[in-house]
């Protein structure tokens, strides 16, 4: 068991491309930390630097208070699950799991008992003599997990391990991985571009963009108070509506000619351009709201997503099915409670904080 500490870590590729910039992060012992961000945000590079598959340009990576920058991947006592599983195609499932242990000189009897244990946890006992090509995607995924477990590493690294599975299996494996990690208590670093995976699995969620951390926190904390427009639109599904607005002073903004009360504790001078974020699930039909025009209604069963326009701006609204009998072309009067409004600076995209809070 160990904690992972990244101190001002940076990665610049030979071509001059800066994949990760001055990034610091501490993952406490036993924590399941998810790195999420769009493709190219540097999350995989970061994971690979922890793994030792990528050299570190600046800063230090420490596992259990020991700097591992110059250690080979095999010496770092970590195990990694790859996106395409990277099973050895010519080896049986048993040998796939045993290979790393054999290279470390673990006695055969010990290997056999560890593999048997992992196979039992992962329900692979009947598959041990098969080759990877005779397995389904989910089974391969479990073998890849098994290969990580048998090593009894200090840290698990996951590089988008579920993205090659179909949607149903993904939901299932998501739960399985999380259960397994809880049971084993191994510190984990998990990379994904899927915000649902990130929200549901993480103890600690790290949202990355363009090589830097946008926000770190518990998933719900990030959901409730995104610190930038980027985080606000990236976390949550359907994404948060972002509306262009102008401050009128005294905690009131104007959107499309409509006056909207925001937080009075925000001291915004009149004329300041801001962006107002409203989550689709926080919009509801109200008598004293603003008028939107429905363009399209998507039914998801329990919920409906209403895509609409408010003047020149686009808006999505999520309501329980049958609560709002919406149709295309219809006008609805909707509103949102002031505590659910998020205010961002239009220029920097950063969340505007109350004076006393900042």
């Amino acid at each position, binding site marked *: 068991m160990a904690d992972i500490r990244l101190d001002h870590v940076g990665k610049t590729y030979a071509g001059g491309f800066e994949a990760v910039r001055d990034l610091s992060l501490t993952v406490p012992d036993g924590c399941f930390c998810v790195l999420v961000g769009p493709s190219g945000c540097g999350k995989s590079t970061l994971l690979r630097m922890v*793994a*030792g*598959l990528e050299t570190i340009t600046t800063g230090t990576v420490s596992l259990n208070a020991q700097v591992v920058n110059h250690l*080979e*991947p*095999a010496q770092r006592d*970590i*195990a*990694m699950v*790859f*996106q*395409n*599983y*990277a*099973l*050895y*195609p*010519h080896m049986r499932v048993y040998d796939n799991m045993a*290979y*790393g242990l054999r*290279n*470390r000189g673990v006695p055969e009897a010990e290997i056999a008992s560890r593999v048997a244990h992992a196979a039992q946890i992962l329900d692979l006992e009947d598959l041990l003599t098969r080759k990877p*090509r005779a397995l389904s995607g989910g089974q391969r995924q479990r073998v890849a997990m098994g*290969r990580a477990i048998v090593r009894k590493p200090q840290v698990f690294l996951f590089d988008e391990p579920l993205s090659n599975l179909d949607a149903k299996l993904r939901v299932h494996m998501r739960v399985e991985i999380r259960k397994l990690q809880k049971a084993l208590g191994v510190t984990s670093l998990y990379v994904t571009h899927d915000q649902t995976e990130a929200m549901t699995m993480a103890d600690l969620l790290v949202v990355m963009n363009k090589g830097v951390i946008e926000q770190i926190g518990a998933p719900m904390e990030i959901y409730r108070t995104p610190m930038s427009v980027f985080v606000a639109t990236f976390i949550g599904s359907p994404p948060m509506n972002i509306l262009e607005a102008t401050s009128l002073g005294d905690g009131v903004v104007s959107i499309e000619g409509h006056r909207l009360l925001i937080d009075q504790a925000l001291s915004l001078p009149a004329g300041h351009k801001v962006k107002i974020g409203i989550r689709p699930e926080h919009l509801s039909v109200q008598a004293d709201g603003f008028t939107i025009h429905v363009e399209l209604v998507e039914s998801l069963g329990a919920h409906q997503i209403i895509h609409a326009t408010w003047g020149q701006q686009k808006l999505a609204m999520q309501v329980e099915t049958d609560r709002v009998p919406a149709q295309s072309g219809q006008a609805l009067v909707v509103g949102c409670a002031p505590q659910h409004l998020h205010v961002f600076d239009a220029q920097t995209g950063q969340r505007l904080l109350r004076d006393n809070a900042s």
Partner: protein
Amino acid sequence: MVEHRHWSMHVLPHLILGLGVLLVVFPVYLAFVGATLDPATIANGQMGVVPGNRFIENMSRVLLAGAGGSTREPVLHMLWNSFVMAMVIAIGKIVISILSAYAVVYFRFPLRKTAFWVIFMTLMLPVEVRIYPTYKIVADLGMLDTVAGLCIPLIASATGTLLFRQFFMTIPDELIEASQMDGAGPVRFFIDTVLPLSLTSIAALFVIQFIYGWNQYLWPLLITSKDSMQTIVIGIKKMIVTQDALTEWQLAMATAVLAMLPPVLVVVVMQKLFVRGLVETEK
């Protein structure tokens, strides 16, 4: 797919196939017939398509006693010489090219690209093109009439390196990374992962190179002068060229039939690996 086809659509492909097979097999059959006749029949030009009764006799004579013409070496020994040459060339080429391809694909060293292109360029310089300088070097090194002199210049070529390079590039990077995590260094990765995965490519290259080595004519002709170093392809040639006697065609044909067998055997035996290599595309 078309379900109801005209009957001619079933017959025509078979007709074409049959013609093709006939075209290939008939000369081979004629060689076999020639190998079964007595000298008089074949010398008089009365050779038909019906085999004679001298097959065993002709065979045992060429194999053990040697035929006439300008060589007296028993064919059994020539077969052995050819076999040694073909094996050394095939195995030598596999070893050299798999190692060079491994270096070019997986290691970052200065002038890596240059090294690859230099190897690549040798494709344009087969033995026939560089035959004089190559002969000069081999002669100066005192390797005339040796197995080394016969094989080494033929081992050096880029085809195998290219084949393995292309194959290695299809092995996913994650597999190397997984090996690294599993504590396997470059040598372990090569032995435990790359070699087993390359098995079918190795088999394919072996077949190609064995036949290439077996069929060599020009180079052995230059480099070997002793009868004891003679390969079977040269042997056949020397049987046909005679100074004053009649060419003993029945013996030449018997030798030709024998010369065909090892390549056929190699293809038949290795065919299974070929097919497996084609079916198991997943890596």
